[in-house]
């Protein structure tokens, strides 16, 4: 539609209030707006500037979201730390036996790290299943907005599951490795002599 025809239709000839520019790359809006302002001396506003409050809200939401997720991961890591730490304490005799057999300190640490990783893997599997169910429930909810039935936009891509698994494995490895180092400090002599 020509500009002139649009003005006639709106009953506002010779008046232009706003020109919208659609870009292939929406994230180039700020740069393009700057160029338009420089070239035509009209005020040009990118969508990011117009939606600054909303974007700030999204950033705040993400900060809260990641803080909560990190806190949950930290608690889970403490769980793994405690389990492996108790396991090292309970298995002091077995550690001494394995040392006498010729297992190296690295072998022993590996055994306990594997225990922690096994716990992390179980946690990942359960977390994936629970996450999938929760997303299904959340995705099925209808929110009546402006007469339409809107649904919560959810990113259910495998990438999200991958990120969750990688973060859990990393946290699990560190949480298991810290107490596993204690296994190397067990002195087999006292235990094998029955003194401990």
């Amino acid at each position, binding site marked *: 539609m020509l500009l002139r025809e649009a003005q006639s239709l709106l009953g506002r000839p010779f008046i232009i209030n706003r020109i919208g520019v659609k870009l292939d790359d929406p994230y180039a809006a700020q740069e393009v707006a700057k160029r338009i302002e420089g070239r035509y001396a009209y005020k040009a506003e990118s969508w990011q500037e117009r939606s600054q409050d909303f974007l700030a809200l999204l950033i705040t939401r993400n900060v809260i979201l990641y803080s909560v997720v990190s806190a949950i991961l930290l608690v889970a890591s403490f769980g793994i730390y405690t389990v492996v730490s108790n396991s090292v304490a309970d298995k002091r005799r077995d550690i001494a036996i394995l040392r006498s*057999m*010729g297992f*190296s300190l690295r072998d022993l640490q590996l055994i306990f790290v594997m225990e922690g990783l096994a716990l992390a893997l179980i946690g990942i599997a359960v977390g994936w299943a629970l996450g999938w169910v929760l997303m299904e429930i959340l995705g099925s909810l209808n929110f009546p907005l402006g007469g339409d039935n809107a649904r919560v936009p959810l990113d259910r891509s495998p990438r999200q599951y991958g990120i969750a698994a990688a973060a859990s494995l990393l946290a699990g490895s560190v949480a298991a490795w810290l107490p596993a180092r204690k296994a190397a400090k067990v002195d087999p002599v006292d235990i*094998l*002599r*029955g003194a401990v």
Partner: protein
Amino acid sequence: MSALIEAAHLSRILPGDPPVTLVADVGLTVEPGAFTTIVGPSGCGKSSLLYLLGLIDRPTGGTILFEGQDVTPLDGDERAALRLRRLGFVFQFHFLLPEFTAFENVILPMRRLGVLKGADAEARTLQLLDTVGLKAKADTTPDHMSGGERQRVAIARALANDPVLILGDEPTGNLDSGNSATVVETLRTLAHEQQRAVVCVTHDPSVAAAADVRISMLDGRIVGVER
């Protein structure tokens, strides 16, 4: 016959105020094919000497030659590798892994060493259990075995990687006389028929009497050697 172990001026002193001397200026040789016992009163340093010879503990002085190699300066992992390949231990308390069956306990050092794998390792495990008369108990866990049976499984495990030296810390200490005689006979056979060196710490006069070499200790020192 060349010595398997030659220890010279061996000492182990625990730091403290005052320091505690466990082993003082000990020299001895261990030869293959001999059943050697170390005897002496409690606290005389027998077990401490055994753990030094078994490369589990480190001497604070002196040297240990194992098969001609000075093992004193080896680090923890090098000692562990040597124990895995060349040494086997039998303790007073059987020290089997309680969650594992007899078969799994015996095959464990083989799996770690990795020389024998799969069916070969399994066949050797069954053969070792057969040697100590416990093939039928291969799938039994230690808590379902008698003390003597557990100790025989421990001997089978000590033999897993075909060691040249078997060390026993009171291996009959928790056994009745019948089981004790069986264990001693097994150890003697390992020394005499398979040319392994067997060194055992013991309080038991019947075990000491069965030995080819008897080393007497007092206050961390060797005070007598009988052959």
